[in-house]
């Protein structure tokens, strides 16, 4: 491979040495030489070069050479242009290794080599156009006789080459690594093919290459081949050019081929080769000889025609499609009308749940995939979205209200324009659902489900292009022609052979439910089915009123568009469709079997009210309504009177209103509202209506908001006790009444709980003293008493407030302060005191850090605590050992 650069520096090392002096030496130079319109064309064809806008042509050239951009550009090529590029990638005119001598093709123009690779008259005719196309996209540059393929494109198209051709002999040998034939081996090979020896490997390879390029000598050489050798070559002829053979012990034909460099070892480890997929490769020159110089097995210079499967009368097509268009608008309206009342929740992972899809499908009386399509369509048109609440749900957007106000034709145009450009593909939903029998074929998530409608993973970027191309192809057919789907698919493949591959690969990487059938084919099938459902086509042929859309888009194929332009398209489509839609009617046929038939679409208001007054029984071109007592009642509930209903029917019936219907309305009206229901918390009942009138007239009763239900009954929203209290305040003597009507005896309110158990005590302090403790306490009291009688020998105890009440303890600590002993001694003192039942002096520091002295009779020493009778406090207490500074036995005097 050469080291072609696309920079603008004039000192580029890869400037083609054979280029005429006047020719450009780099792509940048080539671009510099193009006029503005050509550059504009380049940028239009490859819009990705524009973001961001390159600073200069060098930058533009560099960007045009990036891999991502080239891949994108290749996707936009048709089959023949792509084949041209593929052939160009394998022309021996590949720029020679830098520093190499004059190339062999110095005299043969690349252009001619290319023509040889692409044989046939049609190809020859189309070749200039294909090259121009490639040039316009900056995939090819350089002089006309020596077109040069962009390096990145060459790499993409040779690793491996879609033509099935392997690398050239020189490249094969160079890449062979350890398996590279030694110079002596090369000389041996030269001898085998009957060529004179050379001095160095390079010239040896040149000589071999020249032999391989010479068809006459090659034919002679191959004629000598042993049996089986040709079969081996033929196997690799059309690619892949790699084969696996046992190099250690090759079979005789293979050995023969290897000896003549007709097969070259690649140096790849068997089974795990890093550089080549097989252990031997067929050099490109040899393969081309075998192929008779053709780069492609099937060269497709011309687009396959789209066959017409059936032709219908154009009016029939339009009428059928328009009927579907009506259905489409009605279906979306019905769907969203349902969702506005019961918004379905959004799944946590996004999208609509299986159950909600099922329910919606059942409500619309459609299979689930069809329902998914309408849901996605409404979404694409911006008519429905997630409401973003905490309990997220899908609901119609404000745009829906606007949409509802538009005419049916405009509504349809909105839907169809959205559909035309949407990358979301509802078809994936249908594929994924286990309900479909072929379910398991496609890769799916663990539960065997495809993506949820409205959820993530439904975008397929090639979808709009497939859709638009398909419709454009339909538009090219004579009006009323329904295409044969297979030929349409073929044509689409020819036009964009690489389209969709990248998206499919990406989707597979993301683990989406793709794979199986080619994405493009599925997209096409969905597009055509959806077009029929939407009324874009009728019986498979394009409806005439869609042409404004197809034409508008054809001028500026795909890509974001100004909204103004969209509006124009939408208006044009709506205008074209309008004459095909039936005029809304303002009259219905009323019949004696209590049905009304609207023999076509009704005016909105009429339809809305008739929907209240009668139940819809059947839908379609016409609508059948049935009047029932319930439906008439519903209408009366909206506040209309029987007279209103009669007037309404009179006004909108093209025939006299049948007697049974009139009778039905009167009959229901007669009973409507006979029973009245309301809410009240309490009532006042009295046989004397004068008294009730008096209460009602009394201003003090105003807060009770009393209402006269009947001459003898008043009702109030206030609770009964308030009512009673207020009436008493007003000087009346009301009696409370039970639900059964008995007078409740007035008793002082003695409120009781239901039976309850007393709370279990949760003791915090020590348990109640048992007899042992009490004995100890008594003993301690005695001891304390003794202590009290001891003579005071120490100074005044500043810590002892009890000194006021009783005499201070008579056994002061040794040093006059707190007793201080080590812990072990304290413990021993305590324990012996417990056993002996004697009292001890202790020094104690409480939680606040205040120190005090106490005389206690310990009862228990346990778990770091001492429990005993505190003579000082006159009660049983528990002290933590670690707070006791020391202990001393109370010595009796």
């Amino acid at each position, binding site marked *: 491979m050469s080291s072609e650069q696309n920079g603008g520096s004039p000192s580029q090392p890869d400037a083609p040495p054979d280029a005429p002096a006047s020719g450009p030496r780099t792509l940048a130079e080539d671009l510099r030489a193009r006029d503005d319109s050509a550059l504009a064309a380049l940028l239009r064809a490859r819009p990705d070069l524009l973001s961001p806008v390159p600073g200069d042509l060098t930058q533009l050239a560099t960007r045009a050479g990036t891999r991502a951009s080239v891949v994108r550009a290749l996707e936009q090529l048709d089959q023949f242009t792509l084949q041209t590029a593929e052939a160009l990638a394998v022309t021996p005119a590949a720029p020679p290794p830098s520093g190499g001598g004059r190339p062999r093709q110095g005299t043969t123009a690349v252009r001619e080599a290319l023509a040889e690779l692409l044989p046939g008259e049609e190809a020859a005719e189309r070749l200039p156009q294909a090259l121009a196309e490639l040039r316009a996209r900056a995939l090819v540059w350089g002089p006309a006789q020596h077109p040069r393929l962009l390096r990145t494109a060459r790499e993409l198209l040779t690793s491996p080459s879609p033509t099935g051709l392997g690398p050239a002999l020189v490249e094969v040998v160079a890449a062979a690594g350890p398996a590279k034939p030694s110079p002596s081996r090369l000389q041996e090979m030269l001898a085998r093919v009957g060529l004179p020896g050379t001095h160095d490997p390079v010239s040896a390879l040149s000589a071999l290459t020249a032999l391989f390029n010479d068809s006459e000598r090659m034919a002679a050489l191959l004629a000598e081949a042993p049996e089986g050798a040709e079969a081996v070559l033929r196997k690799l002829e059309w690619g892949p050019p790699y084969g696996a053979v046992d190099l250690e012990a090759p079979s005789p034909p293979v050995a023969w081929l290897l000896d003549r460099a007709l097969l070259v070892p690649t140096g790849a480890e068997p089974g795990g080769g890093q550089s080549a997929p097989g252990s031997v490769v067929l050099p490109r020159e040899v393969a081309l000889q075998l192929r008779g110089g053709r780069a492609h097995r099937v060269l497709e210079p011309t687009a396959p025609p789209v066959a017409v499967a059936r032709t219908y009368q154009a009016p029939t097509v339009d009428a059928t499609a328009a009927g579907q268009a009506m259905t489409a608008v009605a279906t979306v309206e019905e769907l969203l009308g349902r969702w506005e009342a019961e918004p379905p929740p959004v799944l946590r992972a996004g999208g609509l749940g299986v159950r909600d899809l099922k329910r919606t499908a059942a409500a619309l009386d459609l299979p689930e995939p069809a329902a998914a399509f309408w849901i996605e369509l409404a979404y694409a048109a911006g008519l429905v979205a997630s409401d973003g609440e905490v309990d997220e749900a899908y609901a119609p957007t404000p745009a829906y209200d606007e949409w509802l106000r538009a005419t049916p034709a405009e509504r349809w145009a909105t839907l169809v324009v959205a559909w035309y450009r949407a990358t979301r593909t509802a078809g994936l939903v249908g594929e994924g659902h286990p309900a479909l029998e072929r379910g398991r074929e496609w890769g799916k998530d663990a539960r065997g489900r495809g993506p949820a409608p409205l959820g993530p993973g439904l975008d397929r970027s090639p979808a709009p292009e497939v859709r638009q191309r398909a419709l454009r192809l339909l538009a090219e057919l004579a009006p009323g022609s329904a295409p044969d789907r297979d030929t349409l698919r073929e044509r689409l493949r020819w036009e964009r052979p690489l389209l969709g591959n990248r998206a499919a690969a990406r989707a597979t990487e993301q683990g989406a439910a793709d794979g199986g059938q080619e994405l493009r084919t599925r997209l096409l099938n969905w597009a055509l089915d959806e077009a029929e459902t939407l009324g874009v086509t009728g019986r498979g042929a394009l409806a005439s009123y869609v042409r404004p859309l197809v034409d508008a888009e054809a001028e500026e194929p795909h890509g974001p568009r100004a909204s103004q332009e969209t509006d124009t398209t939408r208006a044009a489509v709506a205008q074209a469709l309008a004459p095909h839609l039936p005029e809304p009617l303002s009259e219905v*046929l009323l019949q004696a*079997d209590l049905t009304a038939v609207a*023999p076509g679409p009704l005016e909105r208001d009429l339809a809305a009210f008739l929907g209240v007054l009668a139940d819809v029984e059947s839908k379609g*071109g*016409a609508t059948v309504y049935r009047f029932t007592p319930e439906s008439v009642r519903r209408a009366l509930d909206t506040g209309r009177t029987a007279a209103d209903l009669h007037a309404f029917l009179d006004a909108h019936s093209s025939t006299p209103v049948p007697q049974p219907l009139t009778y039905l309305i009167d009959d229901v009206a007669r*009973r409507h509202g006979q029973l009245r229901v309301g809410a009240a918390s309490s009532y006042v009942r009295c046989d004397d209506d004068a008294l009730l009138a008096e209460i009602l007239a009394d201003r003090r009763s105003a807060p009770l908001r009393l209402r006269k239900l009947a001459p003898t009954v008043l009702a109030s929203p206030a609770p009964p006790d308030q009512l009673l209290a207020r009436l008493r305040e007003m000087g009346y003597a009301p009696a409370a009444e039970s639900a059964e009507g008995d007078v409740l005896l007035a008793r002082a309110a003695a409120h009781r709980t239901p039976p309850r158990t007393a709370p279990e005590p949760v003791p915090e302090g020590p348990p109640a003293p048992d007899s042992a403790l009490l004995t100890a306490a008594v003993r301690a009291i005695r001891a304390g008493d003794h202590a009290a009688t001891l003579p005071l020998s120490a100074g005044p105890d500043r810590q002892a407030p009890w000194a006021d009440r009783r005499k201070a303890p008579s056994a002061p600590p040794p040093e006059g302060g707190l007793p201080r002993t080590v812990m072990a001694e304290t413990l021993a003192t305590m324990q012996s005191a417990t056993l002996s039942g004697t009292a001890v002096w202790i020094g104690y520091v409480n939680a606040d850090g205040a120190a005090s002295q106490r005389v206690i009779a310990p009862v228990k020493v346990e778990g770091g605590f001492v429990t005993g009778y505190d003579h000082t406090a006159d009660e049983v207490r528990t002290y933590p050992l670690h707070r006791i500074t020391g202990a001393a036995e109370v010595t009796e005097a």
Partner: protein
Amino acid sequence: MNGGPLIVQSDKTLLLEVDHELAEACRRAIAPFAELERAPEHMHTYRVTPLGLWNARAAGHDAEQVVDALVEYARYPVPHALLVDIAETMARYGRLALSKHPTHGLVLESSDRPVLEEVLRSKKIQPLVGERIDPDTVVVHPSERGQIKQALLKLGWPAEDLAGYVDGEAHRIALEEDGWALRPYQQQAVEGFWHGGSGVVVLPCGAGKTLVGAGSMAKAQATTLILVTNTVSARQWKHELVRRTSLTEEEIGEYSGTKKEIRPVTIATYQVITTKRKGVYPHLELFDSRDWGLIVYDEVHLLPAPVFKFTADLQARRRLGLTATLVREDGRESDVFSLIGPKRFDAPWKEIENQGYIAPADCVEVRVSLTDSERLAYATAEPEEKYRFCATTDSKRRVTEALVRRHAGEQTLVIGQYIDQLDELGEHIGAPVIKGDTSNAQREKLFDAFRAGELSCLVVSKVANFSIDLPEATVAIQVSGTFGSRQEEAQRLGRVLRPKADGHEARFYSVVARDTIDQDFAAHRQRFLAEQGYAYRIVDSVDLLGEPDEV
């Protein structure tokens, strides 16, 4: 939009605008495959069902014709999916066929092997078939011919029965058209039936179904078994056959509760053949007692379930079903289709009325307000007693009496369900009552007197629902019925629809208690008539009689 008279709905109903200039042509085009469901004054509703489409296939129509008819007459474009569905449904008929194999006898053949594989895997089919002769043919035991047809229909793969019929024992029968002739539609019905081999002819009450039966017998020229609903009806068939054909009294036998005659033409009642003793049907031998060439089922819509079972065994004989409506309250229309045969002829009620063969009728529902005490009693009645109570109130009786008085001098029938009510009415009006325990002799005597005009009013219970022929009844007053039976309503209306000598318009009153379950049942019954184009007027009893209900 081509402004056609037909609107195709998404639920596969077809709406036909009758006032449209192309309506008649369109009706003829869609009649073979669509069932007329409702025929009110402006828009007739037809329904396209698989059964209807298969009926059409059986009658020799193909999907192309059906689709063309829809596309030609439809006002709005027909949804493509619907057309596809029609074509697919129709294509299901005839993939399987029952035929006679020269060596193996009855076989099920398939022109589509996967379909045969599919049905043979069904548990319902497996016990009915025998050995597989070749990949496309399987043996069927002749006795399972009916069952397999029923089962296949349920699977959605109706079999075409090409196995043919036995001729039966030949017997000379000819129509004696002296001074009368088969009406054109009767002639068409006979032709349609004979061409199809077996099947059902749908004609309104009073349109002369007996003559279609007679005409078919004359075609068959073979011994015939006629199954009718009851003895009175059997006598009338006999009477009519003697009058209209070359058959003599001696050639016609009656096989009923009282007589057990088996003659070349035998008329049997459903009741007697479905009588079960000790778990067996003792009268089944009737079917085998002769080599019948034709079996006629009168009132197919009433065919009791056991008769279907017997019929399943009679698939080798020609079968003619006669009925006023294919509506069965038990929904067994598909059994009629698979066992007796597809619909072979059908003429809407109104059309025959327009031709003057049946009398026009004025249907009036008289709403009676109950008295307060009756309303209270009704409100507290047990649920199962409610209908009986409101249907037999005194208020209704008074209104009925007033109606009878108003039509004094016209031939009037009072029809009801409850014997007590009828007895009481009979007493008040002074008219004889015919009910279940009235002897046949007495019945015929009363009918004769009524026919002769000696009696102008008869009170009848539901025994008279079927097949009695009272040509001069011009007024029928219905006071109670079998709940909401639509088919009973049609029968009762049929009582007054026979053409009147003076072309007088018939009156059909339903006396209904307001705001009760009686009213709901009446609404349900009337729906059938309203759908047949007989619009009910609803009148308050007070308005009708011009005076308060009080006597």
